[in-house]
């Protein structure tokens, strides 16, 4: 049975070694002003590529506002 993570409330299939950057690409989160938290802990942008997400994690990708 496949394992999952939760990203902004939606289930996403988890894969071994999946990084924050991988998740952003899968979710097509292309907006640049993002805040990422894994299980409530802030992950700084500089380490998104190497930060591996554990199975079952709750990931928040907070898009800040702009425009208007």
């Amino acid at each position, binding site marked *: 049975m496949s394992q999952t993570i939760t990203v902004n409330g939606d289930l996403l299939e988890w894969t071994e070694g999946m990084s924050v950057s991988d998740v952003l690409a899968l979710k097509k*989160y*292309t*907006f640049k*002003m993002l805040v990422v938290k894994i299980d409530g802990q802030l992950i*700084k942008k500089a380490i998104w590529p190497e930060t591996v997400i554990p199975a079952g994690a709750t990931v928040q990708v907070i898009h*800040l*506002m702009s*425009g*208007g």
Partner: protein
Amino acid sequence: MDIKAFKDAHKLINEKTYALGTIDKGYTNRTLYVNLDNNEIKEKPVTPQMKEKFIGGKGFGLRLLWDAVKPETKWNDPENEIIIAPGPVAGITAYSGTGKSIVVSISPMTDIIIDSNVGGYFGPYLKFSGFDALEIQGKAAKDVIIFIDGINGKVTIEEAPEEPLDSHILANVLTKMYAADEKDYRNVAVVSAGSAADHCNIGMLNFSLFDLSRKEVRLKQAGRGGIGRVFRDKNIKAIVCRSPQPKGDMLNVVDMNSIKERGQKFNREMREFDDDQCEMRTKGTAHLVEIMNEYELLPTHNFKFGQHADIAKIDSKVWKEWFTPRASDACWYGCTMACAKTVEDFEVRTGPYKGRKVLVDGPEYETAAGVGSNIGVFNSEVILELNFYCDTYGLDTISFGTLTAFAMECWENGILNKERTGGLELCFGNSDAALELIHQMSRGEGFGLIAGQGIRKMKKYFADKGWGDIAFMNDIGMENKGLEYSQYISKESLAQQGGYAMTNKGPQHDEAWLIFMDKVNKQIPTFEDKAEALHYFPMFRTWFGLMGLCKLPWNDVEPANNAETDEPAKVPEHVDNYLTIFKAVTGRDIDNAEMIRQSERVYNFQRIFNIRMGKGLRAHDAQPYRAAGPVTKEEYLSLQKQYDGQLKDIIGIDPEGKSIDEKMAATRKFREDQYEKLLDAVYKRRGWTRGGVPTIEHLQDLGMDLPELIEVVKPLLEK
């Protein structure tokens, strides 16, 4: 252009000299009143209550307008006013985005109060010339120019019969006419409309600035709600202000060092982070085009869809190629965000300026989406041409785009045809038809004259003619309160539906933009969460309009540590900058809570102003169904998997075996019910009744239990 001949044709109607005075802590403590019925020119004092309760900018505009009109006053009655007010902070140059004005009037689109914010130099120059607001009442017999000479302390009303109306010419002519010499061009600011504002309710105002780098006059727009139409109905050709040249501390602030310190810190953020964040310095708000497309928020074909395959033809890379960035890409001195992008030497291919090379201010995101994707035009040259003509003719690009999209969907559904449009094939993507439509608006003829009155009046006209089903047109006509929607798809964000339709003036995103928080981040899942957001953000953003501030530097760049704050969406460090600047300018020390209360006072005043005019209640916060969900089968089918999934998982109805009509009906019932529940929650949070009326207790709590407000709400509360 023979400027001398234009000037020689002027006839002085009245003049008044005044003492130049001084600015004290951001305020001149007086306003300028001009009546075009009897040509009266006088000063009015700013009372302590005005500053305490209404602060400035939009607050001053609303206070002055309330006192000037009656509940039954219509937009084209002489007693309606146009008020331009910059706010106490407007005119500092040491922090970005500090040159805004708010224009207030009764709108021909909505028959209630409209407020429209605008850059350009006029607002600060008005203050440097001695006035916290300009209030114009009455109607001139013939075209006039109101000239405020802030160097010599004189205001004149002059008949001005000869100058052309279109703003790209008029603003240039008047800049040169009223400046002492070439070096003085920068000190002249012009407010003008354009030829289409003579005929169309979607008429807007252009506010000029002289671009020192390009040596040309540029234009920023008070776009929303038809104030340009009011301006021309009063036979105002232009308002001109000649000001002392801006320098460091024109406002006699309390603490310039604090402003400079915050300004320098902000400028470092722009230098270090903008290229990796919003790229405002190189793309302006047009950076949003592909982002909105990616998140299915870009209105396409009259808000039916949120994405389009041809997006690459009009995305920000395209605009970056067109733009010629210069240091002077700011609409007020000292702004390092500098997002007022410009296309130089653009060759026009249609209309009266065919073959000429012109300067186009923009496009901003709203224009690229409005006269681009939303009408099915994915051609940057056409978007630029529509942008140019909207500006010079004095038309709001947002309303033009949204109403043209509506007309195109009417064409698609047989409500319009060639016979009814006078030959215009108004199908999606027909650039030539869109361009001819705008030229007809300028000439005041043909279908352009009908369309130029806006969607609400078009719907009635089409229904009265028996051309279409009014219920369908109400569903697809993207207007609320009579104002056209700005350019975001709100179907999947209940909070943004409220952010649009629960506004005081109509669906403009400058009160609240909550789509990411709601739809993408899922940060505000409950009605109470959404209501809190629909309280905080509209009140917070109202504050910019009280001050003379631009909203963009608040959240279009973020400090390095913003992500580490408790509420990054609010950008706490920038909010603290604003509190610091307010104190540094005025000497008044306020905290976050008082900042919101300052806005609440004015916001509730505006709500009650609308109620006084017979509107402003729950019924007027209703939205067209296109803003909430799929009106047509085509829309439903385009996202069938998503909608079917919502039926099953959220609404609790198994879509299996159901027809599209049945599924659409169930979806609609659910979404309409959700919106009603949102209204309940938001009204409660805002201190209003279920009918949308501010309670006396809430007004007392805010210190806004003014007798004139109680008199309006009391009968409704007793029902």
